[in-house]
């Protein structure tokens, strides 16, 4: 007996299909894109002012880093001691350093240094953190113990201290963007690895992993196709935030005098060079500090917007 032929007997009331909760089942459009963590996060991000502000700032910083000539025609190393600590004048908006170099031009040309150190460190930290975190979280056992203890060792040395020690091994002329990025990144990865490890251990117990195992997928395929995509979100957040940390670290090391040599334009170097004249010409120090802080602010704002968008719990808190 098919449903369409069924007629209820007397005394039995059957509501029309439209009035029952079953209508909701029919109302689901199968053509609609399924929503998941990433589409939800994008929906959330699109509506955030801080996301668009940070994106605009980062875009600006990126353009300045790639095409500094577009923003200034003054050479950053064309210095005239007659202008030492000179104030603002036409064509030299932000005045001069103690060496008589144009402050504005030095800030513009220093941008690429900060951005490249930030990017290289981030790629390094992401790669090391991903490999070590994934292996120790997924395989567990003695592999996990060994890798976690190794991570602990790197973790218990504060990274600036470690970077100072590493950087001191290089003569000033051998130091460059790559060396300083390596020095910072080498001790910054354990936190990324820890976050990923914890997340993988959580995801590993999910039912869909058991299903994947039961249909006979190899361990490696399960890790790449099922575990990693489901545990990468917190890693992306910590990676975005570590970009800001790397920029600060470079500036700090250069400021201390164990960073980049003075021949490479760097905000940290300029701040360090201006510190002796803080009392007489504070703006020489303040301007590069503003450039540095705004860049860092942009990346932190982006990282926090992404974090809030990717974390459903954080969304509920607001």
């Amino acid at each position, binding site marked *: 007996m098919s449903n369409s032929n069924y007629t209820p007997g007397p005394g039995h009331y059957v509501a029309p299909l439209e009035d029952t909760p079953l209508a909701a089942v029919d109302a689901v459009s199968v053509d609609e894109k399924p929503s998941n963590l990433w589409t939800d996060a994008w929906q959330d991000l699109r509506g955030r002012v801080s996301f668009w502000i940070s994106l605009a700032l980062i875009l600006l910083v990126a353009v300045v880093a790639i095409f500094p000539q577009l923003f200034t025609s003054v050479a950053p190393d064309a210095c005239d001691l007659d202008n030492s600590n000179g104030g603002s004048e036409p064509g030299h908006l932000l005045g001069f350093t103690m060496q008589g170099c144009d402050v504005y031009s030095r800030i513009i040309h220093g941008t690429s240094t900060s951005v490249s150190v930030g990017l290289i460190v981030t790629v390094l930290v992401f790669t090391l953190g991903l490999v070590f975190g994934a292996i120790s979280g997924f395989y567990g056992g003695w592999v996990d113990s060994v890798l976690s*203890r*190794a991570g*602990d*060792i*790197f973790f*218990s*040395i*504060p990274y*600036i*201290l*470690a970077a*100072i*020690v*590493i950087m*001191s*091994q*290089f*003569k000033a002329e051998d130091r460059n963007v790559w060396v300083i990025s390596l020095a910072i990144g080498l001790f910054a990865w354990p936190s990324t690895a820890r976050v990923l490890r914890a997340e993988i251990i959580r995801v590993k117990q999910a039912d869909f992993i058991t299903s994947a195992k039961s249909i006979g997928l190899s361990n490696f395929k399960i890790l790449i196709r099922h575990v990693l995509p489901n545990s990468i979100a917190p890693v992306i957040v910590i990676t975005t935030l570590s970009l*800001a940390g790397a920029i*600060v670290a470079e*500036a*700090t090391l250069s*400021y*201390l*005098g*164990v960073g980049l040599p003075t021949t490479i334009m760097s905000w940290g170097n300029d*701040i360090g060079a201006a*510190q002796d004249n*803080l*009392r007489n010409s*504070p703006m020489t*120090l*303040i301007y590069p*500090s503003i450039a*540095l*802080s*705004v860049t*860092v*602010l942009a990346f*932190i*704002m982006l990282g*926090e917007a992404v974090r809030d968008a990717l974390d459903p719990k954080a969304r509920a*808190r*607001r």
Partner: protein
Amino acid sequence: MARYIFFRLLQAIPVLLGTTLLIYYMVFAMPGDPILALFGDKTPTAAQIEALREQYHLNEPFIMQYLRFLGGIFVGDLGTTYSGQPVISVLQSTFPVTLRLALLALIIETVFGIGLGLLSGLRKGGASDNIILAFSLLLISLPIFVIAFVLQYLLSFQLGIFRATVGEGAPWSDLMLPAIVLATASVAQIIRLARTSVIETAGQDFVRTAYGKGLSRGRVIPVHILRNSLIPVVTYIGTDLGVMMVGATVTEGIFNVPGVGRTLFQAIRQSEGPTVVSFVTVMVLLYLILNLLIDLLYAVLDPRIRYVK
């Protein structure tokens, strides 16, 4: 509890060995001859160099130097600096200063961090919450040396409230400004942690029950909400104190504080391997001990946590 402390101490040993070995290796690999650097412009005779190399054991292979150093730690001998002073006595004169600086900074950041975080969390979405959040974002974005210079310029050079550099004997009043600078680095993180934690706790059933049985806000907020919100904050402050010993490098340099940070930085620049390693070893030891103490503090703060394994 004793069992737990024992196992935590046991866990700390390989980390400490690994850390000292790693740092000692990095220092060992540094270029430049420290003996030649000692003489400056003068040229020492070959016999003088040889005698000094012998005195500092620089002729021995790396692993022997490391073992010698490690053995020294256990008998309280941390070697001598290249200027002839025992490292331990350098530590004795500089560590108390840094400790006082860190303590002052810790008090400042805890009071303001928890206070503002609580205020912000209880008024979630309000004007004061938004202002405090924007303020904390700004503080996080400012590198510590930028904050140091701005405050030094404004408060010392312009307004004359504090002395720009720390004077003889590092009196508490002189340490105030460096401590404020050191605290700003962490205060923003504490505000945010406390805020999130307070919001989460305030939504719990037991808080509703407390209000429901007629308790006043004056009792619920400190006893029920605050006490249960402190765990993430305490964890952060614990790890932060270890990092602070090093974050002090920049601050102590700028304000000329005669502490470990300044000494350490000078030692690294002069390639004084043993001095650097001793200072770092002490810092790492301190860091591990502090983390252990923090772990034990959990049990006091949160009765649900029992270390019975």
